[in-house]
């Protein structure tokens, strides 16, 4: 499975400068799986498992074809725990902001609502290697 097209990774929702701002906002707002809200701290009582919950999602939606050696974004490698947790802030900012994964990266790369919330929860709850 390839996350990014051979022409390079596509523009995510909310970032295509050719899209009017109003339409951009509408498009993002209309995406039901991209709720712009962080999970509450109370959610940290049940932090998702990195190995079982996060790793598969990150590999499918972020790593494959892009954030891995040989990928389009090889120099921003997220392919293992150490590399992923090296730059948490921009990962959190852009996932929360619905910037990543790119909206037109294809259905395989899209984050489901549950997956996205699990990833955000894991990020704000200390990103444990659990």
């Amino acid at each position, binding site marked *: 499975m390839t996350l990014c097209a051979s022409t390079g990774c596509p523009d995510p929702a909310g970032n295509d*400068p050719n899209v009017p701002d109003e339409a*951009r906002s509408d498009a993002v707002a209309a995406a039901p799986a991209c709720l712009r*809200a962080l999970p509450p701290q109370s959610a940290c009582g049940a932090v998702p498992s990195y190995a079982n919950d996060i790793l598969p999602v990150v590999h499918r939606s972020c790593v494959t074809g892009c954030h891995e050696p040989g990928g389009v974004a090889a*120099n921003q490698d997220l392919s293992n725990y150490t590399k992923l947790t090296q730059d948490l802030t921009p990962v959190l900012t852009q996932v929360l*902001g619905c910037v990543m994964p790119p909206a037109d990266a294809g259905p395989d790369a899209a984050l489901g609502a549950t997956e996205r919330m699990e990833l955000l929860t894991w990020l704000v709850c200390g990103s444990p290697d659990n």
Partner: protein
Amino acid sequence: MIHHRHFSRLIAGSPLAILAFTPLAACSSGGGTSGSPITSAATCSSPGQPTPGPADTHCALDDGGMIVQPTNQASCTVADAGAASGDDGGAADDAATSADSGGPSGGGADSCPYGPTMYGQESDDDDCKYHVKWTSTPICEQGGGPAPAPVIFTVTVTNKVDGTPLTGAATRIEAFATTAGDWDAATYCDTKSTHIDQNNLFDPLHEGPPGTYKGPVYFDQPGQWTVRFHFFENCFDVLETSPHGHAAYHVTVP
């Protein structure tokens, strides 16, 4: 004297951002309006301030010259990472690290996606492409209630190569509470915070007049924050001449 130095910061962009981008013509388009409508800026009796510290000198050379990295819009669409595998003197990075007394030099600086977070309200961007100045409404915590009040940041950006306004940069703000042991550690990077401004959401700022961008930041707790401006985030940051750039500042919130 102006030196046109070549150096590569292979990814001055945020880790996920490199994927984002659409080529081109796109890169000259203006930014949009950030986030939700802003009714009024936050106020408080004792506003915060830019965190005091040494002025930025990371683009200055020992002989009094300045590092200036020219940019080219055509580089915005170049996604071939191999093209960036050449010269990487790291001159600006090295200078930047040593210029920031808040963070030890060396360590993991070279692996960071951004240059060091800076003090004050004026500096060059991390790649010495742009000169950046910012002002804001009073730096206050957002307050309670159903409609938190933001601090409105105004950032003015010029091209270092000729002093012209940086237009159409689709400037974005990333703000987060600084994490101890991140920005001030040997592995300085200032990228480990998970307490971000979740109301800002990385939307492009409003531009006007040309080269001046305005947008909100919601500080929801007191303490040390980092406010990072992203320029041309919608450009691949592979070639050293990519317009993609950043500048981050320490801000003290009372």
